[in-house]
């Protein structure tokens, strides 16, 4: 009996393995036509190719044995049973956000919603991101019609919570069941969900896959390789990293990579940041000096373009789109504008985690969720209901997919298929890596974050590390003393 039982179990196991193996081959085949890209085939030969972001999706990744194998996309969702959107009451509300580049796609979604529910009206109110971060709280607090408000992760979320300007969304089914649960972290405070991240950004370098293949280059996987790559690319007359040092904000994106493996854990990194913000640790101390020194090393190795101090994000995107630069180091959100500059770049963009240590990295890449939906508690109950309904509509997989494909952004909604946008597919690889939430936003005090970022921009542009850090330490001391 025992033997027979084992034998039966063994047969069953063999059957299951065969079934899974068949599914692994068939599933990518089924969607291969949709991707219409040379990198997407039946065999798992190109790291990063994935079938989408569904619970059943697969991604081609290096396994524990070092070989490429199809693996499940990590959704991080524990209760993936998506629900339909809520039915709205009639009425009109304002939807506040800062992404003017998404205006058209969002308007299409709004039009669909309004057509589906006559008597509803959603008006987009768009402000540029800098002013949005600085002024939105004041504006919304006196405007109850601004019922649906997007919030940045970090300082703005903290400010809104201090001012009690967000509604608790923890019990909404569309939040619990439609959103990748691990992506909710930036919108959670004291165990409650106050804001729902929509986009899943990956603030990692985008590289020109065609250029890399043509030159026989591999994306650098550690610090030595990275500096070596810079020298190689520079020698060929190619800008290794199109780092926009003149554009604050985007210049700060590589700060995430510089920080993510700067200590043994995110807790330790957080402690350094908190200590600097409390005046207990200085930017001239070992931890931050180590980060700053890496910028200087990259500058010395020729990683950055000539005249980097005046190199804007516009120039960086133009150089990358024109094939003059190998890497655009800010993140996936740059893919849309790059394709707009040069449509031929479609399907030629890959992503990699920027590892700036030679030891085993703690983290392999960066993710961020900046575009978070919240409800204004000062809005009338009817307007809040309408806002909730529209939010739940945005968080359904079909609508999120329309947004994702149209804006070239990954989203934090489950069951979204990226097959219609080959670049989203090609950069999905990063989802399978060990990611950390963009650590630069741990600096929540603007009086500290700004001089810190400016210091790194100056050092990356060739200024002396010790001098800049000494000045910065003084500025922070002054700012904290007020």
């Amino acid at each position, binding site marked *: 009996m025992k033997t027979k039982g084992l034998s039966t179990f063994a047969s069953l196991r063999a059957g299951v393995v065969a079934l899974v193996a068949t599914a692994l081959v068939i599933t990518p085949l089924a969607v291969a036509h949709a991707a219409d890209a040379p990198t997407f085939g039946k065999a798992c030969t190109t790291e990063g190719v994935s079938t989408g972001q569904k619970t059943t999706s697969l991604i081609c990744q290096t396994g524990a044995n070092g070989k490429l194998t199809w693996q499940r996309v990590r959704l991080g969702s524990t209760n993936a049973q998506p629900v339909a959107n809520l039915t709205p009451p009639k009425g009109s509300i304002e939807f506040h956000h800062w992404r003017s580049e998404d205006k058209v796609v969002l308007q299409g979604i709004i039009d669909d919603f309004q057509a589906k529910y006559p008597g509803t009206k959603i008006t987009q109110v768009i402000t540029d991101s800098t002013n949005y971060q600085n002024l939105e709280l004041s504006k919304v607090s006196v405007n109850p019609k601004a019922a649906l408000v997007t919030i940045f992760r970090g300082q703005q979320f903290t400010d809104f919570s201090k001012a009690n300007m967000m509604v608790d969304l923890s019990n909404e089914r569309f939040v619990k069941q439609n959103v990748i649960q691990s992506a909710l972290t930036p919108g959670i405070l004291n165990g409650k969900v106050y804001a729902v991240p929509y986009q899943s950004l990956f603030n990692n370098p985008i590289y020109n896959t065609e250029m890399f293949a043509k030159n026989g280059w591999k994306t650098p996987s550690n610090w030595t390789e990275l500096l070596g790559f810079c020298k190689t690319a520079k020698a060929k007359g190619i800008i290794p990293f199109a780092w926009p040092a003149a554009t*604050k904000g985007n210049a700060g994106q590589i700060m995430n990579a510089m920080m993510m493996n700067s200590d043994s854990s995110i807790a330790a990194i957080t402690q350094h940041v908190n200590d600097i913000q409390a005046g207990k640790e200085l930017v001239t101390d070992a931890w931050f000096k180590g980060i700053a020194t890496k910028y200087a090393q990259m500058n010395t190795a020729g990683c950055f373009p000539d*005249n980097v101090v*005046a*190199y804007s994000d*516009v120039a960086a995107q133009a150089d990358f789109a024109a094939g003059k630069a190998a890497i655009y180091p800010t993140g996936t959100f740059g893919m849309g504008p790059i394709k707009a500059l040069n449509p031929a770049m479609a399907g030629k963009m890959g992503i990699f985690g920027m590892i700036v240590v030679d030891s085993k990295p703690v983290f392999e890449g960066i993710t961020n969720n900046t575009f978070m939906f919240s409800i204004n508690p000062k809005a009338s109950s009817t307007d809040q209901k309408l806002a909730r309904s529209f939010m739940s509509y945005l968080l359904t997989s079909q609508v999120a997919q329309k947004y994702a494909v149209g804006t070239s952004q990954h989203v934090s909604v489950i069951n979204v298929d990226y097959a219609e946008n080959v670049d989203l597919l090609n950069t999905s690889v990063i989802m399978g890596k060990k990611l950390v939430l963009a650590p630069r936003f741990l600096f929540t005090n603007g*009086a500290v974050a700004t001089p810190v970022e400016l210091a790194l*921009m100056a050092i990356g542009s060739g200024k002396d590390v010790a001098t800049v850090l000494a000045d910065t330490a003084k500025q922070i001391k*002054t700012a904290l*003393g007020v």
Partner: protein
Amino acid sequence: MTSPARNSRNKKEKRILLWMALPAFAVYASLYLYPALSNLLYATQKWDGITKPEFTGLRNITYLLTQDDLFRKALGNNLRFMLVVVIFQTAFALLFATFLLKNSKTNIFLRIVFFFPTILSSVSVGIIWTFLYDPSYGSITAFLKAIGLGSHAPLWLGNESITLYSIALTQVWFHTGQMIVIYVAGLQQIPKELYEAAEVDGASRWQQFKGITWPMALPTTAVVVAYTTIQTFRAFDLIFAMTGGGPSYASEILVTQIYNTAFISQKFGYASAQSIVLVVLVLFITWLQRKTLRVNDGAK
């Protein structure tokens, strides 16, 4: 002696006049007086704009004047920016105005051309000039390259020692046309007989300028200089669009710093103290300029 009836009518008229002034006063009081007085109160507080303010007396002002190196840097930048813009904008405006004085069709057309940048939004001007200055794709660098001076092309907005002057050049381009119009209006008030008499006496054009145009244009110059000074202290949008105050605070001026203090560092009380210093400074400089020009005027 006025009759009681007339007195009563006068009082009634005064009352009506007072009532008529009320709407304007209400607007002035709510949009200017109240915020200005509130600002004085905020300057004595530590306040992040969200939580309850904490009274700190004169600490913000004393800290600002004794400890804040960045404020001193912004102040120095602002004074240099003002000096360059006031000198060049006034000089160019006066120079062009003297050539465009007559109301001929060509002159009127040229006045419109020179005035045109003034009607653009300052953010648009900032973006346009940022593109012009771009070291990779900018037209200015391209032009310098075309004439063989590419290797000498400076980093207009990247070199800390020239960034402020590059923005000052944009500001001069932006507002010279506006000052030309003011100067033309002022110069046209100078009696022609003075120039005719000078010509009879054999005065050269330079002598005419020195002896007639300049002294007679002093009241207009006072207006132009005062207005330009105020413009340079509120050039927030241009600097914000072009450099954001960078690189390394090289183009930070007082208004950009006040904005950063209030909305990025969220120190509204301290920003209020900074704005008070700014207002006092602008008042003092304007008073000084007017006094200087009047003294010269009197000496003549």
